[in-house]
């Protein structure tokens, strides 16, 4: 052929283990059939697990989506055949940990009933976005083993133009023939898929399909199918691990993907040929990813072959068809002998990434001999396809020197196992690297968490400190306020604390007073109001109000206004203390209240003045009231007293006067005995009382005489006949008789009698005077004075008479 042999590059290291591929290539792909139950893990891909969109008991059809992608890096799951969802639960899944994961369990009904689906006849008519969306909805994930969602890988960015599209048909790992048989039998589908990918990615330079030269049939089939498409099939020498993405890129293009980078960084996109087939079926037939080709091989299987398997088919179901002899099998491996992992259970299902189940005999894959000490032979470094220093990393891994491990590019290790394969001491080197990678990732996560914890702790500490500071500030402010108040009290006693207390006490007293008689207060208020209303109604005469009531009302108003003033002042003081914004408002309130109080006081003063000008109505002044009462009594006595009452009254008067006289005489005699200084005064008192008694007796006698004259029948009621041995009574009798005699006397006679009595008194006083002069008493002067007075009286009486 005119085709030139394309130049290929070599990768460092690599190994050549026994291929053992021909066993499973003896028979063509066989449909595994429909198992009674399918177990579909929700996480069959790298990224977020899918989320179920059906519920237990639902009937699902073949191709129906049963779990949707959750997030960007995720892939949906579809029902591989028709049946009923019997459980969504945790089941054993194919995972090196042997752990369980969430699965949808479907009991198949054997009808294999498709959901309505359709492909597109000409994918070139669809936009890139549309195509990628179809790939996403088909749930396609990398089928070479990693399971990275294909749609994500195909979403290339415009700023990273793709030069080369590479399809990976290397399948370098021993035993596995799934891709080989796919190439042999379905080369056309691979090429069709490659065309779709080419349309999607639009590589500017070339499209390559890399195949190891140990698959001549596959290469031939592909070359036949690819004729005229411009897709180049590139065979290259067999070497493990050429099938690694980065290794294949290096072999085909000579370029190395930078550490930690992606193939897209150097303008390359790489896809597995199985993925290309799946994409072809998804675009052209509308079939989601519900089955794959899986190799069942190993000496423990009598009929090793490739199966077209529904996803979710239990491994046991496939082994049963392959003549699996459990006793011969030393361990069951998912994947190849180099990178696969041991399955603990045959109930685990085939998933999107399951390319092989290896059931080796003990002779075929003996358990590794015990590891021995590293002898630093360096064979691992020679074998490493990534040019690392495995033995150094081994030491660092054992010593937990994570920094040095990273310095030695641990994360570039593809875990191919070539180093372990060549190690003469049988050290499981890859396991160290895997463990160390996990430790470092864990340490990074711990570091991030520690950072966050620290932040949260510091934030909390800061918050607590702030709260404490605020409390402290408040406390300080309170203390300062108290000190200020104390200082103000010291400098200004008016606004002192005691004043405030006093004010508070007064206020509480006022309140108590209010509370004690709230009903009366209310009544008074109501009355005042009613009066106001009456006034308003009644010709608008203010004067109609009873003056007393008005006074009362005004006083009530004044009292309440004063109370309000006190409370307003307190409020103002409080506001000032707290530096409140309302200080002004309170000040205004105080001023207003003060005005009101003043106005009320003026009104009351005016009112009282008007009352004073109308004394008849002056009930406000108690003294005047008493005067009024006394006057009223007097008026009543003079006008309304009955005769009997008068008799009684006069008799009473006489009796009391006599008693007083007796007491006075007694006092006088005691005073005389004791030579008291007041003897003269007592004597005067006795005399005055005597004269009063005489007047009273005269009044009584005159009254009785008048009564006797008016009503002779009542004469017998007079006390005259009632004689007694009592000297007082006798005296009264005498006085009565004298008055009775006097009543008949003319004024001249009366005067004469008066003169006689005066002379008599003068004589008695002169006697006393001479006695006093004899004893050298200091009463002599008083007596002389009284004699002079009596003589004056005598003289005036004589004058009247004469």
């Amino acid at each position: 052929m005119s085709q030139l042999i394309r130049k290929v590059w070599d990768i460092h290291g690599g190994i050549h283990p026994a291929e053992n591929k021909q066993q499973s290539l003896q028979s063509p792909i066989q449909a595994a059939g429909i198992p009674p139950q399918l177990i579909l893990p929700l996480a069959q891909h790298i990224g977020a697990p899918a989320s179920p969109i059906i519920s237990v008991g639902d009937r699902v059809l073949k191709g129906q989506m049963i779990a949707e992608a959750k997030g960007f890096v995720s892939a949906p799951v579809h029902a591989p055949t028709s049946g009923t969802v019997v459980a969504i639960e945790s089941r054993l899944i194919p995972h090196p940990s042997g752990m369980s994961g969430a699965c949808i369990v479907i009991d198949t009904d054997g009808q294999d009933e498709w959901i309505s689906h359709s492909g597109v006849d000409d994918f070139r008519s669809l936009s890139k976005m549309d195509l990628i969306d179809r790939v996403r909805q088909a749930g396609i994930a990398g089928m070479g083993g990693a399971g990275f969602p294909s749609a994500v890988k195909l979403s290339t960015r415009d700023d990273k133009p793709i030069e080369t599209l590479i399809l990976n048909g290397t399948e370098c790992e021993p035993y596995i023939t799934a891709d080989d048989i796919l190439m042999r039998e379905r080369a056309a589908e691979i090429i069709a898929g490659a065309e779709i990918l080419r349309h999607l990615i639009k590589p500017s330079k070339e499209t390559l399909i890399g195949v190891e030269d140990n698959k001549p049939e596959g290469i031939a089939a592909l070359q036949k199918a690819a004729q005229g498409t411009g897709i180049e099939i590139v065979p290259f020498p067999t070497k493990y691990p050429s099938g690694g993405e980065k290794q294949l890129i290096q072999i085909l293009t000579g370029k190395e993907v930078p550490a930690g980078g992606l193939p897209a960084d150097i303008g390359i996109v790489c896809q597995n040929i199985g993925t290309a087939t799946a994409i072809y079926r998804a675009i052209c037939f509308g079939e989601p990813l519900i089955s794959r080709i899986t190799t069942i091989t190993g000496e423990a299987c009598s009929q090793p072959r490739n199966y077209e398997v529904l996803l979710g088919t239990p491994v046991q179901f496939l082994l049963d068809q392959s003549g699996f002899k459990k006793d011969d099998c030393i361990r069951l491996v998912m994947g190849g002998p180099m990178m696969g992992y041991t399955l603990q259970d045959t109930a685990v299902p085939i998933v999107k990434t399951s390319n092989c189940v290896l059931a080796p005999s003990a002779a075929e894959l003996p358990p590794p001999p015990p590891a021995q000490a590293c002898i630093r032979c360096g064979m691992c470094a020679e074998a490493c396809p990534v040019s690392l220093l495995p033995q150094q990393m081994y030491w660092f891994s054992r010593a937990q020197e994570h920094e040095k491990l990273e310095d030695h590019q641990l994360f570039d290790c593809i875990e191919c196992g070539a180093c372990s394969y060549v190690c003469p001491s049988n050290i499981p080197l890859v396991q160290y690297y895997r463990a160390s990678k996990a430790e470092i990732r864990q340490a990074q996560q711990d570091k991030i968490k520690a950072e966050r914890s620290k932040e949260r702790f510091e934030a909390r500490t800061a918050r607590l400190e702030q709260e404490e500071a605020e409390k402290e500030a408040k406390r300080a402010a309170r203390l300062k306020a108290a000190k200020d108040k104390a200082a103000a009290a010291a400098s200004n006693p008016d606004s002192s604390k005691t004043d405030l207390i006093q004010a508070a006490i007064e206020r509480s007293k006022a309140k108590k007073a209010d509370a004690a008689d709230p009903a009366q207060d209310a009544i008074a208020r109501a009355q005042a109001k009613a009066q106001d209303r009456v006034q308003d109604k009644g010709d608008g005469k203010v004067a109609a109000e009873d003056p007393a009531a008005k006074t009362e009302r005004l006083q009530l108003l004044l009292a309440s206004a004063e109370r309000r003033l006190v409370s307003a002042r307190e409020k103002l003081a409080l506001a000032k203390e707290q530096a409140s914004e309302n200080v002004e408002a309170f000040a205004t309130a105080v001023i207003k209240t003060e005005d009101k109080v003043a106005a009320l006081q003026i009104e009351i003063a005016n009112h009282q003045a008007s009352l004073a000008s109308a004394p008849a109505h002056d009930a406000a002044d108690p003294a005047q009231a008493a005067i009024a009462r006394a006057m009223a009594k007097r008026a009543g006595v003079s006008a309304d007293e009955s005769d009997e009452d008068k008799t009684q009254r006069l008799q009473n008067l006489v009796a009391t006067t006599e008693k007083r006289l007796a007491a006075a005489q007694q006092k006088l005699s005691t005073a005389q005995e004791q030579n008291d200084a007041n003897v003269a005064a007592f004597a005067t008192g006795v005399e005055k009382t005597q004269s009063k008694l005489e007047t009273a007796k005269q009044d009584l006698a005159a009254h009785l005489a008048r009564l006797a004259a008016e009503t002779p029948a009542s004469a017998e009621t007079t006390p005259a006949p009632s004689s007694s041995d009592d000297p007082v009574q006798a005296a009264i009798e005498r006085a009565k008789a004298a008055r009775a005699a006097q009543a008949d006397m003319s004024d001249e006679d009366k005067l004469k009698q008066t003169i006689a009595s005066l002379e008599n008194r003068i004589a008695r006083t002169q006697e006393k005077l001479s006695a006093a002069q004899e004893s050298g008493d200091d009463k002599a002067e008083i007596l002389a004075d009284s004699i002079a007075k009596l003589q004056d009286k005598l003289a005036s009486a004589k004058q009247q008479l004469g």
Partner: protein
Amino acid sequence: MIELIAQNPFIASLLALVSLGVVFGALLGFAAVKFKTEGDPIADQVEALLPQTQCGQCGYPGCRPYAQAIADGDDINKCPPGGEATIAALADLLGVEAKPLDAAEESVPSVAYIREEECIGCTKCIQACPVDAILGSAKHMHTVIASECTGCDLCVEPCPVDCIEMRPIETSLQTWHWDKPKPPEDLIASDRSGASA
């Protein structure tokens, strides 16, 4: 004067040395002021290695105080959550001998769990949590924000109804990883026979 110095090499050398000492002393003093480092760089570095659980098992109220204490010369083996790895890192940083952990065992990474039906809503655990990882209010059930919990178990003690327990963090599919192999691979053949003999 110059003649005296020239004639007396002892005084000359003494003067030269003294003047050199003064000059460099001044230089050093100036540099010490000019390039003074704020804070305690050692404590910062130590703190970066501590796990920040703020659990107080070291006897200090948080990781920062312990870091300061280590910088001031305290032992480096008092952090059970950090375990041997932290001790090794600290020994490496400070250039001291790694010591065995000053505790019975490394504390297993765990997370506080509140049995919510028993919680009475007293908020005591909320006040105890050093990283504000417990949500709830008075007389309402509390719950732990598991992703923020450091597993310090400071909330367990104050709970009046003992409804908080520390649960070891379970390995999930996401957190599972390969363990390191532990075969006695260091023994050479003669050692092995000697060890078994």
